[in-house]
């Protein structure tokens, strides 16, 4: 017997008032490796975890420069990200051409959000399968935005997207009040700590799998010629920041019940409960 699942066409609401295609697009974002963003009074920074498809493969690109004053980190479909970042670059250049002014960051984010919204409403389209964190500097100071394929955008003090990003959010929520007055080095350290929370148990942050994006004045580890412009740090230059990380406090048993906690403590070889994050698990 045919049963309508209300998910083959994004212009059709389900009886519960949901657009399933849009929710699947949000799942695509969750499948991408994590990206973290945070902001102080002087800087806005991005940190991202780069995946590699194997020992012989290179690591994926997680960050893109949009203009001197704007950069993004992505989670989800890289190819969709390239389309959208290209659009953002066009907007940035259009602003330079017409007004000789760097495009205001909030307008850039609104522009892609509007573009994404169209794909959730028009027949025969699909939503973008990618989410962005956008950092930028304009005359109102440093900014951090999240863009999601549902067509929304929000400004944040600190935020994370992608696989296991909830763990990073928990860290950020615990510490964000101290971010405003952080210098760049402390801000990056907090970012790395948050990003570390998204790793699988046997993994750690290395110079190969981590990328750092910065807007704001040069830090003490950067060259004297560095301007406030957006820059992406990858490879050996980030070693110095990884060194500053403090050991992760030994996780106290956080299992839901004392019984389960003692069970997992006595059986460390048990599979990590969060392994399911790596797969699509749409419940219906």
């Amino acid at each position, binding site marked *: 017997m045919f049963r309508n699942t209300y998910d083959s066409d994004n212009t059709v609401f389900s009886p519960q008032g949901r657009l399933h295609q849009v929710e699947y697009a949000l799942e695509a974002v969750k499948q991408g490796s994590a990206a973290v963003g945070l902001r102080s009074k002087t800087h806005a920074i991005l940190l991202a975890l780069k995946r590699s498809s194997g020992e012989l493969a290179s690591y994926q690109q997680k960050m893109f*420069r949009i203009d001197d004053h704007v950069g993004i980190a992505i989670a989800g479909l890289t190819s969709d990200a390239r389309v959208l970042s290209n659009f953002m*670059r066009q907007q940035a*250049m259009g602003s*330079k*051409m017409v007004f000789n002014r760097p495009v205001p960051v909030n307008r850039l984010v609104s522009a892609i959000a509007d573009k994404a919204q169209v794909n959730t409403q028009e027949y025969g389209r699909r939503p973008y399968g990618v989410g962005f964190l956008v950092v930028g500097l304009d005359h109102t100071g440093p900014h951090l935005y999240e863009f999601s394929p549902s067509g929304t955008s929000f400004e944040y003090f600190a935020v994370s997207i992608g696989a296991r990003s909830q763990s990073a959010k928990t860290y950020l929520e615990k510490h964000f009040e101290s971010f405003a007055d952080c210098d760049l080095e402390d801000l990056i350290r907090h970012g790395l700590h948050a990003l570390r929370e998204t790793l699988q148990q046997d993994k750690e942050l290395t110079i190969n799998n981590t990328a750092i994006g910065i807007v704001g004045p040069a830090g003490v580890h950067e060259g004297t*010629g560095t*301007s406030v412009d957006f820059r992406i740090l990858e490879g050996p230059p980030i070693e110095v920041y990884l060194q500053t990380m403090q050991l992760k406090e030994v996780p106290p048993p956080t299992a839901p019940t004392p019984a389960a906690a003692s069970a997992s403590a006595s059986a460390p070889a048990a599979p990590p409960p969060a392994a399911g994050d790596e797969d699509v698990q749409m419940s219906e």
Partner: protein
Amino acid sequence: MPDMSAIVNPQQRQFNPYAENGGTILAIAGADFTVIAGDTRQSEGYSIQTRYAPKVFRLTDRAVLAVNGFAADGNMFVKKVKQRLEWYRHAHAKDMPLRAIARLIQTMLYAQRFFPYYVYNILGGIEEDGTGAVYSFDPVGSYERETCRAAGAAQSLVQPFLDNQIYFKNQTAAQGSPHPAHLPLPDVLSIVIDSFTSATERHIEVGDGLEMYIVLARGRTLPDAVAGLRPQELPSAGGEKVFVLKRDLKKD
């Protein structure tokens, strides 16, 4: 007999989309440096519009473009070149090499073959092999690499002087000491400054200010004689260095 052509071919008054805004530009390549210079006067007819309108623009850490002719076309052209270079940076995460910029400029100029940018371009900088280079263009894109070139209002005054002082035309070398292929930076700067002070004396459209961009190859430093003139260093990420030296020219 009176001129009948106006009757046979009635001429209609038509909007002229061009103007000539005066000024002169000049570039000289050394072995491991290039100097690109231009005056800062902008004029139309006998009127000075402004005493400071730059005609020389830094494009990358090792490329500088001087633009002379119709000012509106010049500014728009520079803006478009800069945007093309920005797209190149997005795609390749590095600056476009000088010889590639030269070919890009030829393509962009020729694309307007039937409604040309009324500008004479001189591109100077450092090639990938570390040598100083000058490329000069006509308004529709013909170009070549040269050692030196003057263009603009006082081209006819300055170029012969350069032919003599840079290429040693009409000079016979002393026995056993042939003419050098490249001059050192202090000599080149003297020639540039003399070129512009002379052009200012003899040409009404040249004067007010002089801006000289100096591009140094990777690992080179300014000779003391030039450092003493206190040029302003522009921030650059690469090994090449770019300096600007400003001077006053007569304002009459």
